[in-house]
């Protein structure tokens, strides 16, 4: 394994410690699954005894390596992720016994074909909407995946283990949600940036109960500090909702900038935010695989058509979190989100909620223009 990319040192202690933990998992004979997306049915991996870890690329550093194989005008997240694998710079990819991916957007789908040449990659075929027999197909896809894991890794995935995993993951989702819902307070108790970093870090704590305890402890300490008048946010800060693509790689030039210029990110609708936490699996359903399938197919990602779930959820969040303005952060060349932004803009207009869309990548080349646009947007609210 070569040197770790510079940005890892900033990823918070949890992620760094994660490297050592994942090594220990391997040394103790455990299996590791690398995942990319909110659509991955992690309950199945849990039940199979895998440790699931996110491989989502959030640094521009590995993009040049990726561009040896991939086109320039492709989403930076896809390029970064592939770049980590191809340059052997990501310890998590290195330790993965299997990469689990889904047929979501076109760029990812085709990248996974190439990734498979580096690390074995299993692609789940995700239907692109809810219409017709989509749920049935998706459920069958999960059944096939279970059979594949059982056969390939000589494990037994029992119904009981799936239910247990569903209950644990639900509990974790509730903890994440409760933490994010603190922001409904006026003013919100935490800076969005800090909250995002904490949520991101918790993905690299691999023991379920430990992860949940940490989230709950954090919520309690934020609540206590707020009660003592130690809140981190000024009452005059504008309450901003962030939606769009995954933003881990552009946090500094977007979220940080918003919060340095009179805004506070009160709600993250994206993948690492509420989108991934507010829907539960019915762990007591007669058909547990069907219940897992239903939960994941209902995610309001723009790869789905139509994607009313996202729009309806956004409208609800704008009201619940008393939002003053919506910032949609889309990654360059992300066709689904960039096209859908027009619909979001129009729906926000109907609610008289100020809206701005920005399209950006992992480079610093547009940070000057971005700051003017975001500052001007905040000035208009």
């Amino acid at each position, binding site marked *: 394994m070569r040197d770790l990319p510079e940005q890892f040192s900033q990823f918070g202690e949890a992620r760094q410690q994660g490297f050592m933990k994942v090594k220990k998992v391997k040394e103790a004979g455990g299996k590791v699954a690398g995942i990319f997306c909110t659509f991955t049915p992690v309950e199945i991996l849990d039940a199979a005894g895998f440790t699931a870890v996110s491989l989502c690329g959030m640094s521009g550093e590995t993009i040049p390596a990726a561009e040896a194989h991939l086109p320039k005008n492709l989403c930076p997240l896809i390029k970064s992720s592939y770049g980590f694998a191809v340059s052997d710079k990501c310890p998590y990819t290195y330790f993965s016994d299997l990469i689990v991916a889904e047929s979501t957007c076109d760029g990812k789908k085709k990248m996974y074909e190439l990734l498979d040449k580096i690390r074995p990659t299993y692609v789940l075929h995700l239907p692109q909407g809810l219409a017709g027999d989509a749920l049935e197909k998706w459920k069958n896809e999960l059944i096939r995946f279970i059979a594949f894991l059982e056969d390939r890794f000589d494990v037994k995935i029992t119904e009981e283990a799936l239910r247990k995993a569903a209950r644990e993951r639900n509990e974790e989702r509730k903890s994440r949600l409760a933490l994010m819902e603190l922001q409904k307070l006026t003013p919100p108790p935490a800076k969005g940036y800090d909250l995002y970093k904490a949520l991101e870090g918790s993905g690299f704590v691999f023991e379920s109960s430990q992860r949940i305890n940490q989230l709950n402890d954090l919520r309690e300490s934020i609540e206590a500090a707020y009660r003592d008048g130690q809140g981190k946010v000024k009452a005059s800060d504008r309450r901003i909702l962030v939606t769009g693509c995954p933003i881990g790689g552009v946090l500094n030039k977007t979220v940080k900038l918003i919060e340095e210029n009179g805004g506070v990110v009160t709600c993250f609708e994206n993948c690492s935010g509420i989108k991934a936490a507010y829907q539960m699996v019915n762990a007591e359903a007669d058909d547990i695989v069907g219940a897992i399938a239903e939960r994941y197919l209902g995610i309001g990602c723009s790869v789905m058509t139509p994607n009313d779930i996202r729009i309806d959820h956004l409208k609800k969040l704008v009201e619940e979190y008393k939002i003053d303005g919506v910032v949609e952060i889309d990654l360059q060349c992300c066709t689904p989100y960039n096209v859908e932004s027009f619909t979001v803009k129009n729906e926000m207009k109907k609610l008289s909620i100020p809206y701005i869309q920005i*399209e950006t990548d992992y480079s610093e*080349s*547009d940070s*000057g*223009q971005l700051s*003017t*646009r975001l*500052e*001007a947007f905040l*000035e*208009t609210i």
Partner: protein
Amino acid sequence: MRYRTGIDIGSTCSKTAVLDENGSVILRFIQPTGWSSVDTAEEIRSKLEQNGISNENSGIVATGYGRISVPFADRCVTEITCHAKGACHIFHADDLLVIDIGGQDTKLISVQDGCVKDFVMNDKCSAGTGRFLEVMSNTLAVKPEELCEMASKGGGVSISSMCTVFAESEVISLIGRGESRENIAFAVVDSIVKKVASQASRIQTVNTKVCLTGGLCDFDFLLERISEELGTDVISVPEARYAGAIGAALCAK
């Protein structure tokens, strides 16, 4: 007397305007930004002092891409807000569509009741900006204002590329083909106009006056062509290049 001073550090030129208590412009000057906005800010400070303006008797607000390099400013406001306020002041209107063609950005700002309602701005690409015109002028060995003048006598040629770098090579191949300078100049202006029109289609406006601010405000042929393309009269005055600075001054206390 209490004054209000606005300093607009743009990518090409820096503009300064000082208002008196009645909101009349009593002093204004323009200078190239050069390579260091910090040095430019220092020059502006001494020019202001020569005219008896300082932090003692004036609120000072900085705007433009170099706004953070003005250490003696009370605060910074973005050029979007400043151009909107400045244009309302110059054109005596509360409802406006402001087209600002700057050195590195082209912005369209919809203003209602004196407040910014919506805006669009080019991202990192320089298509349709002042920089684009400057690069093309260099290629044709003329000054930007001469290019505009020449363009009024040309026609019949277009540049398909919006990108400054690609458009430049397109212009070079037009030169190679023996196309007249007037026709190429027309194509250059036309491409800026098309870019502005495409941005205008992305912004909602309600039957308002349309005005042009920024460094190209007295390029008659450009005004004429934008008016044609948008199907409405676009107004401007030479003072409109100070819109950002005047708007910044209006934000000062």
